């Protein structure tokens, strides 16, 4: 069949086009696969061939060890990159529009900058700064430009003026009782916070979106059972559960993330369900269905993206809760003291609050700012991603 102008819709010979569905992968999915494969291989190698006590990269002379949490963290970073950042780059028009809306909220822009610092600091910081180490002799060093009574420090790193030990750039934010550098502690805490933020969000989003859309589209008794299960999840005493697990298995950061995110997706699932139901009533869903698209395609291409953009806000507001929970547990002494989180740092300084307040204040302020930043950004995202507002601006 010789079609002269195949680029016109009424000249398409549909019988020519094979109906066989090739598995059509988007560039994002290909990228994700390419990136995840080495990671999986590395994990396999680590799991199979590297001894329990050996560091992952010992074979090439590096002492860096990766635990499962790190693998998962990197995986979520890949997800984040390929399904959030890359699409923004691929759709510059939409990105510009969102940015224009987002930019209106000044505090949110500042917050984004702050979170950028925390993110980059958490990612690169540990590579540049060595982990804070115990050094009893240099405990309670004051931050730079501040001073402390000489009686409180065993060995002043800086100058001693008028009987007061002056802070130095060696420890810009001072040290803890054990001599751990507070600045380094905060930087390492950034990694922990980012891990908490990314991993919990991924788990909550994955379970919440799946559960919510399946429930919405299945309907009937499936829907009923699934939603009652959500009720149970929502009314579950997560904290007590965590205490129980803590006594049985110990309380690593991984366990904390697992337990808390496993019981935090209830609200998200419920939200996703109601949002999916309302989105599926929209005319563009009908228009896609009338074109012959399968339910799977409708859900994946239209329902999930539209739902996702509104649950991003919800997830952003969920993160501060996790960070605070971690800090609270650490402060109460229930956390894993080996994890260099901000909470652990705060709890390390609580007894020295009278004469060395920086140990509590520095990580405290950082934690406070981070939580505030997430809240501001959540607010701004709500405005920027709100589809109703878009419709009105038309």
């Amino acid at each position: 069949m010789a079609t002269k102008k195949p680029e016109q819709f009424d000249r398409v010979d549909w019988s020519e086009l094979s109906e066989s569905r090739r598995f059509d992968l988007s560039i994002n999915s290909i990228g994700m696969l390419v990136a995840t494969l080495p990671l999986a291989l590395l994990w396999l190698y680590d799991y199979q061939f590297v001894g329990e006590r050996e560091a992952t990269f010992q074979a090439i002379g590096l002492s860096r060890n990766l635990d499962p949490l790190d693998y998962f963290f990197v995986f979520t970073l890949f997800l984040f990159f390929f399904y959030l950042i890359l699409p923004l780059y691929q759709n510059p028009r939409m990105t510009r529009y969102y940015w224009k809306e987002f930019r209106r909220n000044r505090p949110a822009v500042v917050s984004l900058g702050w979170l950028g610092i925390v993110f980059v600091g958490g990612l690169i910081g540990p590579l540049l700064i060595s982990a804070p180490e115990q050094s009893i002799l240099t405990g309670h060093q004051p931050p730079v430009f501040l001073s402390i009574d000489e009686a409180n420090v065993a060995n002043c790193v800086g100058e001693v003026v008028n009987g007061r030990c002056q802070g130095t750039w060696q420890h810009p934010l001072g040290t803890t009782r054990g001599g751990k550098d507070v600045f380094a502690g905060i930087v390492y805490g950034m990694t922990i916070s980012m891990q908490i933020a990314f991993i919990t969000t991924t788990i909550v989003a994955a379970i919440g979106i799946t559960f919510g859309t399946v429930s919405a589209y299945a309907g009937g008794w499936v829907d009923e059972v699934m939603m009652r299960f959500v009720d149970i999840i929502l009314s579950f005493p997560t904290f007590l559960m965590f205490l129980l697990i803590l006594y049985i298995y110990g309380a690593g950061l991984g366990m904390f993330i697992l337990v808390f995110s496993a019981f935090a997706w209830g609200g998200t699932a419920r939200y996703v369900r109601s949002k999916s139901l309302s989105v599926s009533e929209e005319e563009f869903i009908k228009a896609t269905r009338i074109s012959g698209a399968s339910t799977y395609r409708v859900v994946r291409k239209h329902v999930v993206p539209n739902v996702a953009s509104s649950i991003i806000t919800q997830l952003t507001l969920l993160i501060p809760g996790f960070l605070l929970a971690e800090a609270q547990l650490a402060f109460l002494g229930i956390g894993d003291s080996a994890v260099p989180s901000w909470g652990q740092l705060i709890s390390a300084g609580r007894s020295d609050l009278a004469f060395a307040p920086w140990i509590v204040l520095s990580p405290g302020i950082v934690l406070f700012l981070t939580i505030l930043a997430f809240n501001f950004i959540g607010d701004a995202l709500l405005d920027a991603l709100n589809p109703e507002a878009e419709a009105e601006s038309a």
Partner: protein
Amino acid sequence: MTEEPLLSVRDLKKHYPIRKGLLNRQVGAARAVDGISFDIAPGETLGLVGESGCGKSTAATSIVRLEEPTGGEVIFNGGGRSGATRNADGTHPNDVTRFDDRELKAFRRDAQMIFQDPSSSFDPRMSVGGAVAEMLQIHGMSDRHRRRAIVEDLLERVGLSPEDYDRYPHEFSGGQKQRIALARALVLNPELIVADEPVSALDVSIQAEILDLIADLQSEFDLSLLFISHDMSVIREICDRVAVMYLGEIVEIGPTDRVFADPQHPYTEALLSAIPTPDPRSTAEGIELTGTVPSPTNPPSGCRFHTRCHRVIQPDDVDLDQSSWRGLLNLRDALAADSVDVDQIRENFRTGTDTGATPDAVKGQIRREFDLEETISSDEMESLLDAALDEALGDDLDAAAATLSERVTTPCEERVPQRTSHEPGHESACHLHERDRSAPPNPADD
């Protein structure tokens, strides 16, 4: 069969079950569409008109199987399916309601739909070009560049520019979005387009543009159109034939100019006379429909329009003027439904006036509320009414209803009217025409 219709709808039904209780037992059904039949010839535009809640949109979605119809047949002969004959078991091979997934997907290429609300008809997170191209992708066109070329060409044909491909829905006005919706409906090169109120949400100056575009595209690509609207002037503009729906049924169908010039069914007549004409000099008093549209869950018996009709048939030996007859019927129904609150009326007289609640005053009030005169013109009916009102005042509404029901009856509520033909292709379902088919009533004399 010399001229095979593109689409033939036969006795199509869509009932929404109403469930109650713990076990979700079905207690009834809202009969949104209750047995409609019509044909659409290739290249023809059929208008489906009616007020909100008459089931016209449900009819549309059931025809294209966006919702599963409860019963009936939708035979679609387009897309190389022509010439098929019925199977031995009476089913039709082209019956859309029986299509399996593969057939249905092929059918999707041949029948498309346009929706009413431009603000929700596009995914806010997808470029409009992408939304149109997605249709092609779904049907197996995997060549991205070819998809883009087709869509860009099509965008130009509906009056936009190829550069609009990458823009997002929020960047377009309502009229432009409706153009893109047309492009999306056209891109698979269908033979039938179902347009569900495509211009209702637009300003009048934009409406004209879009209607023009639809007409142009229709003639260019030889499309058949099922055009759904509540707006009679839009229907008149674009449709070859029109079907008037009331409460899930088609009451009249015929060529547009004939239906507008010589409406046969009283409902069509009332609907037409209700359209405000943009002519300040016209003083014609329209026909005023009283009451409200009954619930589709429990539609009136017989002719569904009889509860509001201004031409309800009276028994042979009764000759009241229509407003009194209407009033009597309404009073009878209200008494039977227990919705006449005699105590309340008494109470109002006690507090609101000095005269007090004398029986005559109360009766007068009831008559006023049901638009009945002080004395109605037929003595027999007057005495019957008076007796019924006395019983009502004695708080025996059932007896009052029974009294009235003895004589206040109409064939309209007893039998479902059959479709009668007035001239080729112009049919209506009304007892008036069944009765005196030889002498059709002149709609001009009221």
